[in-house]
C-alpha cells in the first residue's frame, strides 16, 4: 500500500511517518501544501492520504475536494488541530473518510488509519 502525508509541519510529517512505520505501507511520500498534494496524488496514486487543513498556498479542504474530483474513490484522512465541530463536518461533507484531531498519539493515528482503510 502507498501513503501520502500532507502537512506543512516538518515535525508532523516525521511523526506521522514514524507512527505508520510498522504498518503495511510499502511506500510513503510527503507534500507540504494542498497544491503539492493534488499534484503528488496524480503522480503517486496513493491508497491513503493524511491531510492537514491549515497550510500555505492551498488549504487541505480545497485539496480534498480537488483530489476527489479526479478520483472519487480516494481515501483521505484529515488530521488537523481545528477543533470546532463545523470543520470536522465540513471535511466529511467534502468527501474526507475521517477526521483526526491534533495533537495526535501513535495509537490515535494508527486507529484512524485502520478505520479509514477498513473495507
Amino acid at each position, binding site marked *: 500500500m502507498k501513503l501520502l502525508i500532507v502537512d506543512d509541519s516538518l515535525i508532523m510529517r516525521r511523526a506521522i511517518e514514524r507512527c505508520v512505520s510498522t504498518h503495511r505501507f510499502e511506500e510513503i511520500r510527503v507534500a507540504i501544501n494542498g497544491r503539492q498534494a493534488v499534484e503528488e496524488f496524480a503522480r503517486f496514486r496513493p491508497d491513503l492520504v493524511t491531510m492537514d487543513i491549515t497550510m500555505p498556498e492551498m488549504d487541505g479542504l480545497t485539496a480534498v475536494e480537488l483530489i476527489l474530483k479526479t478520483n472519487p474513490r480516494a481515501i483521505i484522512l484529515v488530521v488537523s*488541530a481545528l477543533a470546532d465541530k463545523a470543520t470536522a463536518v465540513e471535511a466529511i461533507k467534502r468527501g474526507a473518510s475521517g477526521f483526526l484531531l491534533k495533537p495526535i498519539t501513535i495509537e490515535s493515528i494508527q486507529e484512524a488509519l485502520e478505520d479509514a482503510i477498513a473495507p
Partner: protein
Amino acid sequence: MEENILKIFALSVTRYFDTVAEGGATLAPPYLGADGEALGLGFSAVIGITGAYRGNIYYTAPRRKLHALLPHLGETAADDRLCASLVGEIANTISGNAREHLGRGFMISTPFILEGSDIAVRTTKDIPCYILPITWQGHPSRVLVSLQKSPDTP
C-alpha cells in the same frame, strides 16, 4: 479581553502536554505584558488571527525545553530545524484547538517562526498582550495572547 479566552488557551496548552508529553505542565497566573517587553525565549511562533477576532497568538520556548520535548515526538536528533518546526506546531495546535470554544470564526494563519530572545511585543491600547507562563520539567515557555473581538462580531 475576556478572562474566558485565557482559560481556553490554558486548556489547550494543558491538553497538548497531556497528550504529547504525558502531562506535567504547570501554568502560572497570566499577566499583562508591557509594551516593548522582550518576551522571546529562543524559538517563537506567531499565528495571525482574523475573522471573529483579530490579533496574534505566540508560543515561545528555549532550545533546551524543545530538545527535552522532541523525544516525546519520537525524535532522536535535536537540531534547530526541528526546534523551529516544533514551536510552530505547538502554536498551531493550541490555536486550532481553541476553536472548540471560539468557533469556526476564529480563523488562524499558518505559523511564522522567529528565532532569538530579543523578540519584543508591541502592545496597543486596543489589543493588550497577556502572557501565560508554562513550566514543564523545569523548563519555562510562554503563550502570548493578544486578541480583540472584531468590530462586527456580536
